[in-house]
């Protein structure tokens, strides 16, 4: 008998469409896997009935001879940042605990319309602020991976750490993620899976709990490049309800997948060779160049001179936008209200927000409030926006010399939970390679490259031109075919 939880998006979709098995059998297998993995804490709520209902719809459509959709019969995990009608949506915060959206986010609706079902809502760093999945009100998520010879709980990355854990642990064939400064790519790298952040504006932000609106972008996380291409196609599309949605057709990325890179130039940014990067990461980067050369690409050295300034600019811009976006949590319209006896309106705001937000969220709101405050706005915020323009210009210049950029996704492999909590800055540095593409709004993907000497996965990152997800996916496919990454975490949960 097939172990359905080993199947990916494409295999499930094609198997259901071809009558090899039913969508219900698949959904039941994944529901059981989810139910048996409470120790990983990947889900905040589970919705087995939603997955089964979607599966039955797919099975009935097949019986009736109707088309099944791009995700027909595929159960997925939904990051708990997407509003789901009637299903608690929290952004992993106490302030939204119990919030039951009266509407469905565009991205999740698109997925249901394509035939997908929902296994549950996935844990994440609170309001997507974090790189280790340790800031959730609902507890840390553990990676299914452990260091060789140790049983210390490892970080699944963040903020989409519930998503990365669920996909790596075979609790879901795929999951949604969101990426503001690396929150799809870094967790994908930490757990040996694929994840792509498309061009800013490809996926609607309507119904996605806002963190930093000029950076937030949804994308798929799955175990293969093909599965990412399929699911991204189902998620993306113009949405009039999002003012920054791209009004352009969604290409058929799946159909155009090709690992033949003849005629393509791959840029290697010299500024990404930073102090503190693991030797194993540097070795995998070298290996990545070889793989892409083998696929027919020409490797060229490029320069992105403002790389060093991308992360500090991000840590002004993202908190600034967050401080504004999170002003909506006031204890009046939805979510938590903390109203001490006899308190007035202002006290209610301050008490509610003190009780409802976690420490990292408060820290970022304060930084954002400070850099936007009178007297500091130009020195911090305007300066950061100008640096952002320069980071973006670096990429524009690079595209004169190459078609896609290859770099590591992260400076290190996963780390034990709790090991980087002493200083917020050391945690921020984890996203040093991921943030430049976020600031520039470019499509970027992480694909597994191999294991380090501790037996932990390492990812390689591909960054493409705006709107050119295809070249990113194709280069990712070329690496996937050559890396032959088949390692999976041993089940301990």
């Amino acid at each position, binding site marked *: 008998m097939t172990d359905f939880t080993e199947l990916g998006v494409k295999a499930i979709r094609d198997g259901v469409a071809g009558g090899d098995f039913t969508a219900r059998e698949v959904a039941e297998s994944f529901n059981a896997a989810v139910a048996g993995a409470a120790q990983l804490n990947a889900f905040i709520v589970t919705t087995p009935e939603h997955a089964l209902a979607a599966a039955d719809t797919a099975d009935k459509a097949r019986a009736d001879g109707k088309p099944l959709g791009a995700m027909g019969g595929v159960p997925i995990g939904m990051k708990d940042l997407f509003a789901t009608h009637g299903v608690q949506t929290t952004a992993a915060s106490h302030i939204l605990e119990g919030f039951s959206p009266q509407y469905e986010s565009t991205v999740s609706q698109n997925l249901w319309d394509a035939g997908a079902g929902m296994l549950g809502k996935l844990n994440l760093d609170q309001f997507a602020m974090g790189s280790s999945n340790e800031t959730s009100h609902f507890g840390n998520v553990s990676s299914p991976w452990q260091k060789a010879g140790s049983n210390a709980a490892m970080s699944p990355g963040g903020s989409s750490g519930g998503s990365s854990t669920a996909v790596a642990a075979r609790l879901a064939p795929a999951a949604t993620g969101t990426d503001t400064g690396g929150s799809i790519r870094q967790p994908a790298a930490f757990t040996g899976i694929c994840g792509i952040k498309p061009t800013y504006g490809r996926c609607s932000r309507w119904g996605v709990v806002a963190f930093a609106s000029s950076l937030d972008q949804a994308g798929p996380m799955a175990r293969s490049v093909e599965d990412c291409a399929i699911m991204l196609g189902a998620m993306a599309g113009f949405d009039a309800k999002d003012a920054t949605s791209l009004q352009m057709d969604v290409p058929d990325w799946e159909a155009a997948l090709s690992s033949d890179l003849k005629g393509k130039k791959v840029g290697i940014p010299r500024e990404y060779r930073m102090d503190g990067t693991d030797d194993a990461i540097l070795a995998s980067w070298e290996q990545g160049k070889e793989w892409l050369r083998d696929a027919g690409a020409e490797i060229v050295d490029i320069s992105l001179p403002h790389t060093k300034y991308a992360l500090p600019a991000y840590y002004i811009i993202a908190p600034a936008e967050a401080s504004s976006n999170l002003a909506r949590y006031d204890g009046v319209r939805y979510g938590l209200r903390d109203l001490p006896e006899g308190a007035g309106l202002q006290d209610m705001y*301050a008490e509610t927000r003190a009780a409802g937000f976690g420490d990292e969220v408060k820290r970022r709101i304060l930084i954002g409030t*400070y850099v936007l405050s009178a007297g500091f706005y130009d020195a911090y915020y305007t300066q950061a926006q100008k640096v952002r323009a*320069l980071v973006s210009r670096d990429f524009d210049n690079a595209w004169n010399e190459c078609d896609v950029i290859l770099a590591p996704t992260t400076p290190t492999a996963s780390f034990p939970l709790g090991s980087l909590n002493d200083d917020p800055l050391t945690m921020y540095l984890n996203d040093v390679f991921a943030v430049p593409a976020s600031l520039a*709004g470019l499509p970027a993907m992480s694909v597994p490259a191999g294991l380090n000497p501790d037996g932990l996965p390492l990812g390689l990152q591909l960054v493409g031109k705006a709107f050119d997800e295809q070249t990113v996916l194709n280069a990712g496919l070329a690496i996937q075919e050559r890396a032959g990454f088949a390692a999976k975490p041993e089940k301990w949960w």
Partner: protein
Amino acid sequence: MSVDKQTVAKIAGLARIKMGDEQLEALVPELNNILDWVEQLGEVDVSGVEPMSAVIPNALRLRADEVDADPKTGGGKRDEVLANAPAAEHGFFGVPKVIE
């Protein structure tokens, strides 16, 4: 630039987050570490550079001048809007008394 406890208290007030003395004191070095680190942006020559707020070229659209063109964002949703309110009364959001 660096912040002291009084400044952190002021920012927390602006952000409407109640904080005790201990929290404020803990935040002073944390915020200063971060602010010291972002200070390096001052080194960058940005003369003649326009601040960037929208990364991907995209024009804002006008929609048809039509009431409730999209039912999801149109009107007539009072009950849905109030469904998650901590205190809803008589079809309104309830708040503590604001007029003495």
